[in-house]
């Protein structure tokens, strides 16, 4: 292990990787700071270009963007009261009041330090958690794997879709599975669902699909909107009190540790995202704080807790991906794409087949957290201008980057058509309230689900009860059924409650 850690350090400390980390962190902060753009979009844009790098440089760039983007959202949250990224929604509660009270620099610095420190802790937890899960995962076969993938898909499509209805999340996953079937049968290699197109005979290309859905869902609806935030940021630096002191760091330390701990658990569970980590740690911090009444009114501890909670998920989010090959979030799905185009298939044997990748990933998160302190301090000087970058200029450029990237991966115009198709699909899904992340993950896991089901049945001679005879498989299948039943029943209860509430309302209206 120690040897691996040293090897990972030597790889990541190369000047090219360090430069890419700096570039990635800066790009991530800028994308995170602009409402409507996220680190996910930045990763999606850069993904095709990593095809021309080696895997360690590719991961350095993408990790830098991911880490920078998770912090960047706090900039517009603090200065404009508009979260730059969904995970910074909680930061607004205290960051914006702090800025309004004349402490914008202190609020941004608190967010920066708590984000960076929580990230460092999350990189360490990612390493140890991955080792633990990988060791356990080695003991499971295709029977258990099928049940785990099925459970993850249900979890992602029900719990992990926020405001969307459960049936829309599951429909999105199923559409993703359908797209994964295009090309050929994974076991018999029989051509399947390729609509007699030669271009589709090896399946739908990964990059146009990933990039198109992300861009389509996030950018197209903004067409015509020339401002990402309303209003203007006030002063950027207050008086001499507007800075983080040593006493402030000591005050926020417990919330950084709790954020890293909560973020580790939340990040490692498929379907739960950084916003949940931020919300839970904020709630926990309010109970722990000696001054809970200040939360929501400009509390430094509140900003630290919110940012530590969302950044704590950064490393652990990648654990299920690295050790099981199951991406639990949209960003993890993009990282899976990055690994696959470099020829690395993550899974239980990753520490045997590609250990340097995991160690370099650990170092990339660790170092980008450190680099972020330096870059973040500089960016704070320009922070008030970043969310004001004209969207009518940057968004068309993003689409061109995507189209060039889609073309560049295969040198084929067909990939540009596929990109446009998925941009359109992503847009209409967003319009209809369908989440796109479950579709991405369904597409990425479709092959794994089908192969493991059919392989298990092949070994068991077609006997379906084999899935119930393994305790691990049985446990995950029961968990899947319970989760589905819970989600459906809860949805019916809400429906009944809403109708019951609507009746007196209607009666009242008639009386009026």
């Amino acid at each position, binding site marked *: 292990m120690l040897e691996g850690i040293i090897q990972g350090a030597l790889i990541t400390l190369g000047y090219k990787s360090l430069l890419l980390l700096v570039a990635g962190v800066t790009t991530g902060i800028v994308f995170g700071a602009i409402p409507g753009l996220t680190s996910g979009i930045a990763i999606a844009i850069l993904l095709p*270009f990593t095809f*021309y790098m080696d895997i360690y440089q590719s991961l350095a760039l993408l990790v830098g963007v991911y880490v920078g983007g998770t912090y960047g959202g706090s900039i517009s949250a603090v200065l404009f009261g508009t979260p730059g990224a969904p995970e910074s929604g909680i930061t607004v509660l205290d960051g914006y009041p702090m800025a309004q009270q004349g402490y914008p620099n202190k609020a941004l610095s608190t967010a920066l330090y708590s984000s960076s420190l929580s990230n460092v802790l999350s990189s360490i937890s990612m390493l140890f958690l991955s080792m633990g899960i990988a060791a356990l995962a080695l003991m499971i076969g295709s029977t258990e794997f099928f049940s785990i993938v099925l459970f993850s898909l249900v979890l992602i499509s029900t719990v992990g879709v926020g405001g969307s*209805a459960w*049936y*829309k999340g*599951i*429909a999105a996953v*199923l*559409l993703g*599975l*359908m797209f994964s*079937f295009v090309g050929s*049968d994974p*076991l*018999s290699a*029989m*051509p*399947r*669902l390729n609509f007699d197109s030669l271009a589709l005979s090896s399946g739908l290309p990964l990059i146009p699909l990933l990039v198109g859905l992300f861009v389509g869902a996030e950018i*197209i*609806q903004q*067409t*015509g*909107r*020339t401002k990402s935030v309303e209003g203007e940021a006030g002063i950027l630096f207050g008086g001499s009190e507007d800075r983080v002191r040593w006493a402030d760091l000591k005050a926020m330390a417990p919330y950084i540790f709790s954020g890293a701990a909560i973020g580790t658990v939340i990040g490692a569970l498929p379907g739960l995202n950084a916003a949940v980590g931020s919300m839970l740690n904020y709630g926990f911090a309010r109970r722990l704080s000696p001054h809970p009444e200040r939360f929501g009114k400009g509390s430094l501890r509140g900003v630290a807790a919110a940012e530590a909670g969302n950044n704590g998920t950064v490393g652990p989010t990648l654990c299920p991906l690295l050790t099981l090959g199951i991406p639990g979030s949209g960003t993890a799905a993009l990282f899976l794409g990055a690994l696959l185009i470099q020829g690395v298939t993550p899974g239980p044997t990753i520490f045997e087949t590609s250990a340097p990748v995991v160690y370099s990933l650990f170092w990339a998160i660790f170092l980008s957290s450190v680099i972020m302190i330096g870059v973040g301090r500089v960016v704070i000087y320009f922070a008030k201008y970043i969310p004001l970058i*004209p*969207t*009518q*200029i940057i*968004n*068309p*450029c993003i*689409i*061109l*980057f995507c*189209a*060039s990237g889609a*073309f*560049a991966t295969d*040198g084929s*115009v067909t990939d*540009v*058509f596929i*990109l*446009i198709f998925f*941009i*359109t699909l992503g*847009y209409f899904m967003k*319009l*209809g*309230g369908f989440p796109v992340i479950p579709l991405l993950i369904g597409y990425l896991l479709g092959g794994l689900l*089908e192969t493991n*089901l*059919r392989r298990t*049945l*092949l070994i068991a001679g*077609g006997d379906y009860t084999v899935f119930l005879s393994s305790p691990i498989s049985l446990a995950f299948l029961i968990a899947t059924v319970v989760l589905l039943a819970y989600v459906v029943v809860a949805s019916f209860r809400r*429906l009944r409650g*809403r*109708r019951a509430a609507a009746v007196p309302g209607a009666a009242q209206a008639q009386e009026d």
Partner: protein
Amino acid sequence: MEQKKVEIVSGAFLIGLAAFLLVYMRTQPWYTPHLSVIDDSSFFPTIVSWCIGALGAVQIAYALRTSPDGRAARLNLRGILLVAIWLVYAFVLTTLGFLAASFAAVLLSQLLWGERRMLVAIPVSAILPLVIYVVLGKILHVDFPQGIIPF
């Protein structure tokens, strides 16, 4: 469009998609339900299609029973036009070439988005494709179509 209509239309789309897939698969040589699950290439796609159709029906049923609040899902016509611009881009990319097609597409997209300063829009539309062309095309050897521009 009202939210309720959006729910019903998208639910109907899911049912239509499922029906299309089920009918289409039956016409294909790989539709082999007589084989065991292990050998049947159409087993998983068939199950998934049925489930998509069923969820479409569930969505319509929910929409009819709950009457979702009237928050309308606003169709952004400029967004549709933007997608159309890039669809045309894909069609003319080989004929016009990367530089010319990209210049036109980025410029039109900026104008559609609301940029009115031609002194900003034109240089951005010209410089970005050129940078991508040089970096990807000349340094990383991506074979972009040349089209009408002879370099």
